[in-house]
């Protein structure tokens, strides 16, 4: 066993740090740290910087312009980016559609779409969830009916993250209503500028607009936009879901969050002393830190055992549950740290203003607390993950 990074790993980490120091504007990092929404341009600009450095698609095969990094290298990169408060890489094209096209796309699709992802020509979003489906992804009603060399798509998708910026969506649609639930599903690429596509924002309780509903009314999609075979879409969807989970533990985000709590609690005073010296607060903080140390090691153990990019299912379920519990606990601790200054609704307008009032001191801590309740809901709720873990240990049990 060797718990320390190799010399090569450390060299790479220093490279990443140097790159971040040079390429990441501090004003942008501040926005990320405060949990403010980034503009489409800010994301696109960050992608372009990474692409220029050759680091936009670390997991992609080299033949498609990727880095084929091993897991530990990827982990170092993710963690350094998170600690530096870099914008996250928008995953829909790079981490989700990309791997599906690598494995199941036609050569024509690969040649056309993959370079466009790397160059930022398209902004992709994901059309999986439907109203009423919830955790039961197979329960989908959006229909695609073949009409000569087109599919006619009707239906509705929801929880489409950053769909407001997207010009393309990859969708699961039902192409055979007679078939059993998991069969009869196809994987379609849809241009969102096609007539009949409508995007409606969903405002969340923290005031953010990051998810959307997408409506399809008689939307005509050329048949060359079908990925793989008709009615085999569920296979591709499951493959994608596994890839969605590569950075599932969110160790870097958790570390960045914990560091922010410590900084804040060192400056905030309670009863005439720094809050961080309050025994109850210090105890809460230390327990989470100990949990996180262990979880980060669990993550590295699993990553270093995993071959290539595919994360093993049960282990990634464990990381999902524990990772979200820890991140939510950090958000909870941060709102506690802010005390009464957590109550003002820190609207983006107020944040951008120069007013030195309560909300500015505490930042958007309550918003982040509420927003991150999503962590245990999306990407397969923690209940679904517990089901997977228990089934693995107990055999056929429900």
């Amino acid at each position, binding site marked *: 066993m060797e718990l320390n990074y190799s010399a090569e790993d450390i060299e790479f980490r220093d490279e990443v740090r140097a790159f971040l120091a040079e390429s990441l504007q501090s004003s942008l990092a501040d926005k990320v740290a405060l949990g403010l929404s980034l503009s489409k341009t800010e994301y696109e600009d960050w992608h372009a910087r990474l692409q220029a450095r050759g680091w936009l698609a670390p997991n992609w095969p080299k033949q498609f312009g990727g880095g084929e990094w091993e897991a530990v290298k990827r982990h170092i990169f993710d963690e350094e980016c998170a600690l530096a408060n870099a914008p996250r890489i928008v995953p829909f094209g790079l981490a989700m559609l990309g791997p599906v096209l690598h494995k199941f796309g036609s050569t024509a699709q690969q040649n056309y779409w993959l370079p466009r992802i790397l160059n930022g020509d398209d902004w992709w979003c994901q059309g999986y969830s439907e109203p009423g489906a919830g955790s039961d992804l197979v329960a989908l009603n959006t229909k695609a009916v073949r009409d000569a060399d087109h599919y006619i798509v009707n239906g509705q998708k929801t929880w489409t993250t950053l769909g407001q910026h997207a010009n393309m969506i990859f969708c699961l649609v039902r192409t055979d209503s007679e078939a059993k639930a998991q069969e009869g599903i196809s994987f379609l690429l849809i241009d969102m500028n096609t007539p009949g596509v409508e995007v409606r924002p*969903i405002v969340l309780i923290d005031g953010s607009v990051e998810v959307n509903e997408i409506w399809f009314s008689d939307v005509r999609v050329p048949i060359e936009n079908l990925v793989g075979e008709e009615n085999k879409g569920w296979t591709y969807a499951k493959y994608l879901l596994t890839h969605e989970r590569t950075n599932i533990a969110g160790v870097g985000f958790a570390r960045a969050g914990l560091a922010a709590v410590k900084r804040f609690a060192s400056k905030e005073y309670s009863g005439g002393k720094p809050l961080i010296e309050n025994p*109850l*607060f210090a105890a809460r903080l230390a327990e989470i830190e100990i949990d996180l140390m262990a979880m980060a090691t669990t993550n590295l153990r699993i990553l270093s055992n995993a071959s290539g990019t595919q994360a093993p299912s049960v282990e990634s379920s464990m990381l999902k549950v524990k990772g979200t519990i820890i991140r939510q606990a950090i958000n909870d601790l941060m709102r506690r740290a802010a*005390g*009464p200054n957590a109550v*003002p609704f820190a609207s983006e307008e107020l944040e951008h203003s120069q007013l030195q009032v309560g909300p500015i001191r505490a930042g958007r801590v309550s918003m982040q607390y509420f927003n991150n309740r999503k962590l245990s*809901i999306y990407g397969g709720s923690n209940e679904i993950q*517990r089901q997977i873990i228990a089934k693995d240990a107990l055999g056929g049990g429900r």
Partner: protein
Amino acid sequence: MNFELSDEQRMLQDTLRRMLDDSGDSAWSQLAEQGIFAALFSEDNGGLGGSGFDLSIVFEELGRAGTTDPIIESVLVCGRLIASLAADSHSELLGRIVAGDVQLAFAHSETTSRYELNRVETHADHHCLNGVKSVVVNANAAHLFLVSARIAGDVADSSGIALYLVPVNTPGITVVNYELTGGGQAADITFDNVQLTQNDCLSTDALIAIDSATAAAIVALCAQTLGAMETTVSMTCEYMRTRQQFGRPLATFQALAHRLADMLIEVEQARSAVILAAGHLDADAHSRDLHASAAKNLLGRIGKLIAEESIQMHGGIGMTDEYRLGHFAKRIIMADHRYGDVDFHLERFIALSKT
């Protein structure tokens, strides 16, 4: 021993529940018209009630309905402070507060005071006020600010805190308004050489009165949070009965059902804590504060459970602004950040348990 409401209390509860059933977020004018604020004050102070249980009945119903009016801050706290501190000259003002004709805001907390009522940096020298007050609820609608200011002692001393009654348009006052998470508005208020007179000064040593008014606010806020939790849990039950997943209602998923059972148990615990705090509101300060801290600590812990679990059981819909659940969850969580949080009150409970 008797846990039954009196006939008057039951009537108050019924009236409120019916009235609030179809009110939106704001019920202020209805409440004022129906004379409900009188239930928050004793007969001596121009009211018709004023006991801890009167408070808990009113605010539990407001919480159930999801009202966001700042009644605790404007009516209850300011009214009680004026009732306990002001000379007879102010009884007319108190009457107008009870009638809902005038609105106040209690400008006490400061950016660095956190939950400590005794920590006041704003100071008044020869009635000239300087300092900044933060998160002053209802400043936007108030006609008068009730402002605390230090006239003697160090920043955290118990004595030497004065209270001034200040018209909002007095020269030297700057107000920056903002919204609050979960509803309502507050402001940061800067006092820059605001010149007042002896007449404006309600008290030169107000901390005991502030403590007492805060105890009433804690009973009210706990009851309001209890009401919000009742609505949240009943929405969750309803959702579990009707929402289908994998071809059957959520209610049939045992893992969720058992977690719901724990929520139901804890809501009964919260109800008991509110009853205890309400029943000791007029007891001696030690017993009053011990039970208030117990309730505020427990409601904070249970509130976190109820808010988080309700959202989790709802899934995505529970996080949308369009659906009511998330708003109740926000109010429940934000209640932990007012008048002292879980840790603050646990420490106070420990300190009070020693004596």
